[in-house]
């Protein structure tokens, strides 16, 4: 299997605190991997390092054979790696359709046009509408995103991310703050979408039920280091991992 995303010996320090301490990861193409670990383990920092928000003190990140380290966040998106955020980042004052259209226009290289009417950009708008339908928001397309529910806003963010034609999708707590049925919906959606489009997915999650429902591989991060990196069944039985979670059973959803 081809390695889609490779993280090699990445280190990040903030003063005396080492947030990420020599992490090595290889994510295979088309797989869904979950990154779990207690709060403060360094998961979001790792995401920030991969997506160019932070510069690593050491180590490299590769997307297939393209080196991501040192690129700006915009370039990394163009290389094919897109992320969503823990605190949903959308365009509150725009409609859902407009928001996804902006993302699509950027991907198609048509965001520069100063003179055509945006609502006549047929290709971009049609793609955006299709994406919204794919995430189940077809009838909310003309609504202002600020007026949508938290769950729906998360879906809009996913649609925007998909509009960038990503090879790899990094999702930061996609089920954060969602009710159980909403969580299940998002999980099913992720599986379907990833499978249909062949997207490689890496997600940070705290909801163990979601993790075990969807992940083909689990990576456990603790104090900046990888504690375990294996299939769900194996990780579940790992005594160190159990200890880190203070003996909590993995069937708990929180």
């Amino acid at each position: 299997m081809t390695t889609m995303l490779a993280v090699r010996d990445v280190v990040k320090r903030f003063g005396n605190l080492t947030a990420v301490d020599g992490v090595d990861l290889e994510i295979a193409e088309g797989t869904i991997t979950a990154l779990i670990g207690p709060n403060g383990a360094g998961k979001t920092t790792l995401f920030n390092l991969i997506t160019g928000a932070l510069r690593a003190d050491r180590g490299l990140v590769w997307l297939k054979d393209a080196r991501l380290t040192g690129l700006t966040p915009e370039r990394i998106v163009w290389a094919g790696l897109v992320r969503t955020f823990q605190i949903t980042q959308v365009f509150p004052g725009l409609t859902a359709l407009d928001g996804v259209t902006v993302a699509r226009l950027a991907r198609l290289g048509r965001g520069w046009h100063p003179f055509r009417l945006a609502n006549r950009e047929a290709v971009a708008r049609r793609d955006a509408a299709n994406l919204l339908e794919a995430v189940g928001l077809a009838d909310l397309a003309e609504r202002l995103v600020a007026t949508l529910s938290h769950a729906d806003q998360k879906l809009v963010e996913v649609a925007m991310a998909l509009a960038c034609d990503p090879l790899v999708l990094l999702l930061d707590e996609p089920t954060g703050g969602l009710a159980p049925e909403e969580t299940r919906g998002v999980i099913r959606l992720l599986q379907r979408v990833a499978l249909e489009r062949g997207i490689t997915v890496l997600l940070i999650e705290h909801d163990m039920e979601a993790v075990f429902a969807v992940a083909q591989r689990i990576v456990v991060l603790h104090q900046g280091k990888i504690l375990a990196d294996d299939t769900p069944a194996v990780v579940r039985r790992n005594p160190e991992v159990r200890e880190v979670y203070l003996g909590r059973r993995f069937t708990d959803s929180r």
Partner: protein
Amino acid sequence: MNEPRRWLPGWPTLLLGLLVGAVLPLVAPIYYLHLATEVLILGLLATSFNLLFGGTGLLSFGQAAFFATGAYAAAFVLKGVAASMPLALLAGLLSGAVTSLIVGVLSVRRNEIYFAMLTLAFGQLFAVVFLQAYRITGGADGIAGVPRPRLGLAAFGINLAPTLNYYLFTLLVVAAVLWTLWRVSRSPLGLTLAAIRENPSRTAYLGIATRRYRLVAFTIAGAFSGLAGALFAPFQGTVVPDFASWVMSAEPVLMTLLGGPGSFFGPLLGAVFFVALKDTLGSWTEYWPLVLGTIVVLLILFLPEGPLGLLDRLSTPGRCEAATRAPNAEARA
């Protein structure tokens, strides 16, 4: 209903405005035509400002710099090169574009707060240059006797000196430019700029070169501010360094607030209120900054979206938070 409603749809409003403008000379005395010309020119300046503010989320305290640049450029052309309005307007447009491009490159490097202060600083710099370079710009006295030339070929031309003629000329030019700006605001570029306004950090993570888009917006705004200045020079007859002052830069801010930054025609409406206000205050204008400042403070505290925005809000419940909300913490820097 949670869909955005546009209170003043583009096409019809522009045509209506043009009609009203054309009819005005038939009903109003000359003095009001003079005021109306000022409304049009300042309205253009304010609309350019709002391309940045309402359209892109960038607050520029230095648009007067480009306005003044365009005015000086037009003055030079009309007095020294050729008595040609089209050439003067072109000079205003180009000089505004070039200077705003340079200032923009330096100003968009960091976040919106730095941007605002830098535009203020550069605006002051322009004012200082216009004042000090007296051999070129005439210093504090500025350039006097800027003519209103004939428009067109010698025998078939129209003399622009009469108020009525200059008013109609300005009406046509401003209408054409506003139509252009309107198209820009409704274009993919305009939509992307709106997204940058809503969440600048998100756009970066969608592969959008946020800085570059901001620079493009700034240059377009600067170009049309210069054009407004070029219209203003023959209108006033004199060009002085005060055209670049920070108090002058405050005027488009106020006009936009008076009308509402959320709507394309808000700034123009605000210009109407503004000119009316300035006209009625008359002798009070010794303390004009005090009045200006107080109104600005009150508006931003209690009515930041302006009357048009308020109308919008009252008719579409649930929309209120969107326009004034702060972008997420991650959006800083």
